């Protein structure tokens, strides 16, 4: 039943995109399309929630007579699928709601509307696919439709370039997955996940598969060093699509990893977790470090997505490590933390992208150096955005903190791991995680402070207006979700429990029963956290303080000029800029960035303005991708001479081939 309804909804989505081709010119076209999408998403969402809470244990399957002929397209919904369905369709609903308003500003709806539902359909299809072929088709269909969305604003060369790199990386990942499935399915070509699960394999094989899967899903999730496309492609798309790509599509990649590494691949080996942990922590720190330095608002958010993906993979790595050593409880904790973070990130990253989209429509600017003071014209957006910033900086009582807290608790359990490699790896990962959390706080202070606070740095910023109600409602919906997940983490954990049960074999203790709705990962004597109470305390003491102050203190208030240190210059340009805000960090981690600073300080009396240029490049790009590109160009150039030979030379090619083959036949035994 669950499967059928999901499939029907997916079909509806596809039909919607067909419809969009026709109606995208119509006046109400945008509205119609997004409303249809919302409806479909909500239905899938409802079914998934019902399933996850109602009958989590069982798994429903359906086989359609399409796809690979002798296998058919198999679809399956189990707890894991249901959980990710919730993540995706929540994001989808919010994004569509937001787009009801935001989409009106779209200048080329014909290039967005048809692909948007297809994109959502693709993501949903990935989740329910139950054989390698339909999985990969859905996977690549997802990439394809999102590619079309990335190049929607195609007149900007940046976007098309981003799209190119994106589709290239995407199909690279797909080929890696293809190889992985090839290994899993074996020469017989039994592509069904069922057969794969039950298959017996040589012991060297799963390791290789895991590496391939890491490459395949990592390239989609933005795992370093495969993340280079992400900061290019995500900002290029329209903002609600960026939100989907960053907040949701990366989660589909995570789903792929979990599905294969935890489900299809059987019991893990302990060294897998080392790989995953190393990649995860490297990604986390690199991502946030680069995020701090970005001037482009949406690119900053994209880099922070990279960081959060890193965090998620740290959690998964821990789960693998514990699982490999049979420490079920700890493994369940880590896995729960990872899934929880998946949920959280999908919330606040979408929220932040919505905010950036609102800013974009209000000012037409993505460069935060040209923004500022937006809190005055658009207070509600600012409020929502601030909430997102707090959540993503892992601050209580919002949701971001809970998942990181669970992760820390999981790390604290890891000294019992027998392997030395893990003993050294895990604390390092923990340090990286802490560093990442702190840095992301700094990053988002900068982001929010420069964008919304201070004085407007450009006329566009000064002329900004609050966005429409649909956009705001989309943002506040997600903000509420963040708050709820932060206040009542116990319920979320219990909801996740069946997934954990299914793939780890154990689960965290039930949280709902505990008094005051606090959460207790292992035992109360070890650690416990109660978002609700913390929130209440903060609220109470705030009220208390306010009351006291307003009771006893004077309420006199006078507006005056800001303290200028006896140096009157009211030019907004004198404000602290984003680059100068990032400068300390840039200095401290200078050997990571290799940022080139060129200072041009004119001699006294020279009217020239002093200039400070900062060139920032993604090292990974220089290290891996640029050389490959150069090499291919070189090879192509060399081979290209073969296009310009004389007929005689071509003949001699044929001749040579003939002689060579004859020789081969001659010396054939």
């Amino acid at each position, binding site marked *: 039943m669950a499967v059928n309804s999901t499939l029907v909804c997916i079909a509806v989505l596809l039909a919607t995109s067909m419809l969009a081709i026709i109606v995208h010119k119509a006046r109400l076209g945008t509205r119609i399309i997004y409303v249809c999408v919302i409806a479909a998403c909500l239905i899938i969402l409802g079914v998934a929630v019902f399933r996850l809470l109602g009958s989590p244990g069982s798994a429903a399957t359906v086989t359609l007579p399409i796809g690979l002929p002798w296998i058919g397209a198999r679809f399956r919904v189990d707890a894991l699928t249901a959980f990710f369905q919730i993540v995706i369709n929540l994001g989808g609903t919010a994004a569509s709601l937001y787009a009801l308003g935001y989409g009106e500003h779209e200048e080329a709806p014909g290039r967005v509307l048809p692909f948007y539902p297809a994109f959502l359909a693709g993501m949903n299809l990935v989740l329910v696919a139950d054989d390698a072929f339909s999985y990969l088709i859905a996977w690549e*269909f997802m990439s394809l439709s999102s590619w079309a969305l990335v190049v929607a604003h195609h007149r900007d060369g940046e976007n098309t*370039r981003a799209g*190119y790199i994106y*589709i290239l990386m995407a199909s690279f990942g797909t*080929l890696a997955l293809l190889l992985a499935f090839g290994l899993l399915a074996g020469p017989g*070509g039994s592509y069904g996940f069922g057969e794969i699960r039950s298959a017996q394999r040589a012991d060297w094989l799963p390791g290789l598969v895991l590496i391939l899967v890491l490459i395949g899903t990592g390239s989609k999730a933005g795992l370093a060093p495969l993340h280079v496309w992400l900061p290019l492609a995500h900002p290029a798309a329209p903002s609600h699509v960026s939100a989907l790509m960053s907040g949701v599509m990366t989660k589909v990649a995570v789903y792929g990893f979990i599905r294969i590494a935890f489900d299809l691949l059987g019991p893990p080996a302990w060294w897998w977790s080392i790989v995953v942990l190393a990649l995860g922590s490297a990604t986390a720190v690199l991502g946030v470090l680069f995020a701090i330095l970005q001037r482009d608002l949406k690119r900053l958010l994209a880099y922070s997505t990279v960081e959060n993906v890193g965090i998620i993979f740290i959690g998964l790595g821990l789960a693998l490590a514990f699982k490999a050593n049979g420490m079920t409880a700890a493994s369940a904790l880590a896995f729960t933390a990872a899934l929880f973070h998946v949920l959280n990130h999908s919330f606040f990253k979408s929220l932040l992208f919505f905010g950036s989209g609102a800013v974009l429509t209000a000012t037409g600017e993505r460069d935060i150096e040209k923004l500022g003071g937006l809190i005055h014209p658009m207070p509600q957006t600012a409020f929502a955005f601030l909430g997102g910033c707090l959540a993503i900086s892992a601050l209580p009582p919002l949701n971001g903190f809970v998942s990181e807290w669970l992760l820390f608790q999981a790390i604290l359990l890891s000294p019992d791991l027998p392997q030395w490699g893990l003993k050294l790896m895990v604390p390092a990962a923990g340090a990286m995680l802490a560093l990442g959390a702190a840095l992301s706080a700094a990053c988002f202070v900068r982001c929010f402070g420069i964008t919304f606070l201070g004085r407007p740095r450009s006329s566009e910023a000064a002329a900004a207006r609050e966005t429409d109600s649909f956009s705001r409602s989309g943002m506040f919906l997600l903000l509420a979700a963040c708050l709820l997940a932060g206040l009542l983490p116990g319920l979320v954990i219990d909801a996740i429990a069946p997934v954990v049960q299914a793939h780890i074999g154990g689960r965290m203790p039930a949280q709902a029963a505990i008094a005051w709705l606090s959460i207790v990962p292992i035992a109360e004597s070890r650690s416990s956290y109660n978002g609700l109470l913390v929130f209440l305390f903060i609220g109470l003491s705030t009220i208390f303080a306010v009351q006291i102050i307003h009771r006893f203190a004077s309420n006199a208030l006078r507006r005056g000029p800001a303290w200028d240190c006896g140096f009157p210059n009211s030019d907004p340009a004198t404000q602290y800029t984003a680059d100068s805000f990032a400068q300390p960090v840039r200095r401290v981690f200078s050997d990571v960035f290799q940022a080139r600073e060129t200072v041009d300080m004119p001699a006294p009396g020279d009217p020239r303005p002093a200039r400070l240029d900062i060139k920032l490049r993604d090292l990974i790009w220089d290290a891996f991708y640029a050389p490959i590109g150069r090499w291919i160009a070189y090879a192509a150039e060399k081979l*290209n001479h073969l296009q310009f030979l004389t007929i005689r030379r071509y003949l001699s090619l044929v001749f040579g081939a003939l002689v060579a083959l004859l020789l081969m036949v001659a010396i054939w035994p």
Partner: protein
Amino acid sequence: MNLGFLSSLPFQPVTAVLVIPGTAAILLMLLPGYRLTARLNVIAALLTFFAALTLLVERPPHGVYLFVDDLNIVFVVLGTFVGFTTSAFSASYIGHEIEIGRLTPTNLRFYHAMYQVLMFSMNLALLANNIGLMWVAIEFATLTTVLMVGIYRTHEALEAAWKYFILGSVGIALALFGTILVYMAARPVIGEGQDAMVWTALIERARDFKSELLNVAFVFLMLGYGTKVGLAPLHAWLPDAHAEGPTPISAVLSGLLLNVALYAVLRFKMLLAANPAAIAPGPLMATLGLVSLLFAGFMLYRRRDIKRLFAYSSIEHMGIITFAFGMGGPLANFAGLLHMTMHSLTKSAIFFAVGHIAQVKGTQKLSDIRGLTESHPVLGWGLVLGVVAIAGLPPLGIFMSEFLLVSSTFARAPLLAIPLVFGLLVAFGALMLRLTDVAFGKPTGSMAAVEASYIPLFAHLLLVLSAGFYLPGPLVVWFQNVARLLG
């Protein structure tokens, strides 16, 4: 269209497949006037297609000269279909050419006649039950295409035709030598004369043949017919012939002639496979295929001419198909057949689009074509869809074949899969790069509306798309039989 009417015709459908184009050719040679001849051309092609369809229904017994079996009927049906759609496309295309005076009516008469001759000879090559006859037919097909490639009489066209002609003739010669050797190998077993060249007889007795002789023969046949397939060291004629000839011919070349040549290679591969002592033909084909794939993949990057670009992509895909058949086994063979079908459809569709694009933009230079999706949405998105299909992205048909091929290869011979995947990636990169430039960005060139017939284009794409989702059961069974046949 009811098939009863066709089978009630006085002659066998087998012969119909040959006679219709033959007579049409003669008619077209005589008749003047572009409209009439174009229509006639389309009708003839359509009739041929239906005749081919009837072959599916009731399969005639094997004759000495002609025969129909699972393998060649795939090619025949596919070929006649693409022939039909291409003729429909060429009707509108040629019309435009006449208007701008690139072709004179005399050329035209010649053109249509040649088109039918080509159809005839290709069908003959496919249906021939006699390896000598097959050879003659393929030679004939080559000659006609040579004439059609040179039809514009520009420097480039003549040079391309000349190159094609010389290389093609050498290929033909090698193929003939191979054929003779096969006969020599068969003669001691089967006895002198006709029978020793009849395919059905050969395949039955193949195991008793002299294996060494067969080896040498296969070398010659592989190189000879491989030249036509356009495999890497022998490919030189292909890009120019595609680029300089009229676009319908490019479509026919990529969609049909390459397949016919491949069909010949397959026949002889089966022959060798049937003989236990002979060298396994698989590795040779696989190697040639890989070389072509990699080579073409790199060549794609430096192309400046849109038709040459897709010509090289044809080389690439022929490489993939040859590799697949070289790998052998049920999965790979299935993938190969599927890929071949899909490639014919897609590539001809792409050429349909490219033809109209080149006409409306008045150039084939990639650098002069920009922002198609904006200036000519239907054509542009059609091209995008086609390239996406040819690049092997789902949900289009080629993805399925590549999926089967890559996964099965990796499971069986991982080391072979690495270059395969690498080649696929390289080619993909090049194609998408060019596509991005052509389809997106600020439009250049004329924005004039194009009077084009989109039906063939989108008919093909629709077929490819649906094949990506769903292969009808009978087709699958049929392909599986063929795959088994190919061993």
